[in-house]
């Protein structure tokens, strides 16, 4: 039983952003929206109107549906691997909703929500997952390692924590060039144990990089509960050690996420300094399709968190606002399910990338020694076309 996922609840609950400065580690947690859709008394809402709110909600719905369907597709053997963000979708969709399109998003791997909000198309997700020739990543990485330079979403890299000092550098470059841009850097509470976390946060603080470090504290790193990950008060308690302004929020509260990131963006740009946000949430699903959490945690623990569904919470708010109704809701989800199913069918039939893509992009140009290896490979495949059915047919 993970005791850590609850312990931060002891902190004071506040309803406007409240910073932990260098002289306090009493860590309050920001909550704006209650599960029934009502807003806490006195809470200060983020900048959000009906258009933005419906866009956010539709993105959350798309996220939920895509995750459900792709897990099913993986079970059917149509896909090799998938990772859902079940229960923590608000952290990434809300984050993207609070940013400007020119801001760089650097994720860990469970941040597809942010990319969805930016407008990455359903078929683009599919093409990546099916490693087909339309994948922007040219079929080189495992499913869910998305990236788009057009949408300022850095391609996901599996080694954990590496994006943290990179985000500091990226943001420093943005500042130096006088741009109205920040970088947001997502990572899990597990990855926050890597040395790169320490390096990245300290460098950002010392060099004044406008980066928002966003920790998704979902209680687990694969099977390792957060109480075997650290003994401090979450990740937020580390902010003071770097002299970085820190904010803890309810990660299942989309309005708190948007509010916090909106504030952090303003602060980072104005003060040329980093911010840490720790969003308390829970990884409701398995770590990935290769994992089965029943081996390391209880149904009760899961059930407790199921009651905090961030998407339902937002829906309740939209209904209360009269910005949304049940019919729209059913139609949305049904439509999405069909779209996703159809898109799977299309994507899995698209051809794999051409053989040539095996050797491009190692360098800016293909150097001689790799060109030679490629030519030998082509000859070899031509000699044994049946052994390499995916590429042999398309060789000239």
């Amino acid at each position, binding site marked *: 039983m993970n005791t850590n996922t609850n312990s931060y609840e002891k902190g004071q609950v506040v309803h406007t952003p409240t910073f932990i400065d260098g002289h306090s580690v009493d860590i309050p947690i920001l909550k704006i929206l209650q599960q029934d859709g009502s807003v806490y008394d006195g809470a200060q809402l983020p900048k959000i109107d009906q258009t933005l709110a419906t866009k956010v909600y539709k993105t959350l719905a798309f996220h939920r549906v895509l995750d459900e369907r792709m897990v099913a597709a993986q079970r059917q053997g149509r896909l*090799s691997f998938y990772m859902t963000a079940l229960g923590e979708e608000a952290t990434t969709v809300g984050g993207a909703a609070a940013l400007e399109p020119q801001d760089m998003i650097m994720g860990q791997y469970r941040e597809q929500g942010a990319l969805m909000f930016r407008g990455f198309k359903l078929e683009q997700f599919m093409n990546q997952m099916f*490693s087909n020739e339309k994948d922007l990543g040219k079929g080189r*990485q495992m499913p869910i390692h998305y990236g788009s330079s057009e949408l300022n979403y850095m391609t996901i890299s599996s080694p954990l924590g590496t994006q943290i000092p990179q985000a500091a550098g990226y943001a420093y470059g943005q500042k130096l060039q006088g741009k109205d841009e920040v970088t947001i850097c997502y990572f899990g509470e597990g990855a926050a144990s*890597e040395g790169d976390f320490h390096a990245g946060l300290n460098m950002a603080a010392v060099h004044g990089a406008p980066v928002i470090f966003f920790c998704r504290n979902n209680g687990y790193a*694969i*099977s390792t509960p957060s109480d*075997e990950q650290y003994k401090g008060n979450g990740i937020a308690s580390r902010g003071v050690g770097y002299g970085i302004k820190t904010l803890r929020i309810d990660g299942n509260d989309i309005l708190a996420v948007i509010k916090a990131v909106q504030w952090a963006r303003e602060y980072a740009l104005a003060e040329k300094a980093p911010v840490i946000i720790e969003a308390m949430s829970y990884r409701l699903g398995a770590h990935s399709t290769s994992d089965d959490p029943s*081996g390391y945690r209880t149904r009760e623990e899961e059930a407790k968190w199921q009651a905090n569904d961030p998407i339902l919470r937002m829906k309740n708010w939209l209904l209360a606002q009269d910005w949304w109704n049940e019919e729209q809701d059913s139609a949305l989800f049904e439509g999405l399910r069909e779209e996703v199913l159809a898109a799977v069918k299309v994507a899995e039939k698209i051809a794999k990338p051409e053989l040539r893509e095996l050797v491009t992009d190692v360098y800016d140009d293909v150097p001689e020694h790799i060109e030679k290896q490629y030519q030998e490979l082509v000859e070899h495949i031509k000699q044994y076309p049946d052994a390499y059915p*995916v590429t042999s047919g398309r060789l000239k």
Partner: protein
Amino acid sequence: MAQMNLLQAINNALDIAMAEDDSTLCFGEDVGFFGGVFRATSGLQEKYGKTRCFNTPLTEQGIIGFANGLAAQGSRPIAEIQFADYIFPAFDQIVNESAKFRYRSGNEFNVGKLTIRTPYGGGIAGGLYHSQSPEAYFTQTPGLKVVVPRNPYQAKGLLLAAIRDDNPVVFFEPKRLYRASIGEVPEEDYQLPIGKADIVQTGSDITLLAWGAQMEIMEKAAAMASEAGISCEVVDLRSLLPWDLETVANSVAKTGRLIISHEAPITGGFAGEIAASVQKECFLNLESPIERICGLDTPYPLAQEKEYVADHLKVFEAIKRSVNF
């Protein structure tokens, strides 16, 4: 004797090592209660307690740093790095610390009791970061031993030898074979020697040399060659540092030909070291150039994994080239 897969053989070796010595510890990411993402340490926490088999925070440099300290103190740490692709954050602790601990102190201190276990290699649709074979990054580091088993029997015997060896050992486990490779494994304690190659099949026309999961490929190619009337001597290097030049050179002196194969990219891979040494040792015996059949000089791909890897067909073609030189 029992039928075990490679994971069971590893688990069995760990069990024996922990039972015989109270100061033996197994740890790493998810290694404790869950038994590791591949389940190699399954049941060990239950049996030996949370203080001897445990999860660590997610920090490879921390895991190996911690292990170095434990080994210096006199405990016998067996640290797991979840995937060999993730061993690089610990590179400094391994290459600058573990490897040089004894030398720099004039043997006042050493970390000889350290063993690092890590699953390596491709063939599981893992792409760039779940497929690497980084053994050559370690074989150029004096002070380390580097061992790679090819099947369950070898895995148990070599792992027990590695754990008891009084030098830091990096033990690469061919994860593609974890469940795929099944064989007879004695239930009792035994060791296989570190530093000795193993002649898997004798032959007269050409020597095929590899290690780990790549041995399967070599045996397949040897079978194809045999049908074509070519007799292959197949050698499993097993230990890459130190490595058994004598056995390899004797084989090449006999056959006059050598093909080395590994999963890692060709340039800078360990086959280069072997070829360089053997061309010197067997200069007058060689009847054709030594060939290296390895991964291409690219990061490990996904969609074109099949094309990328050093498969039995590529080895077979090299055999023909070599014999017809």
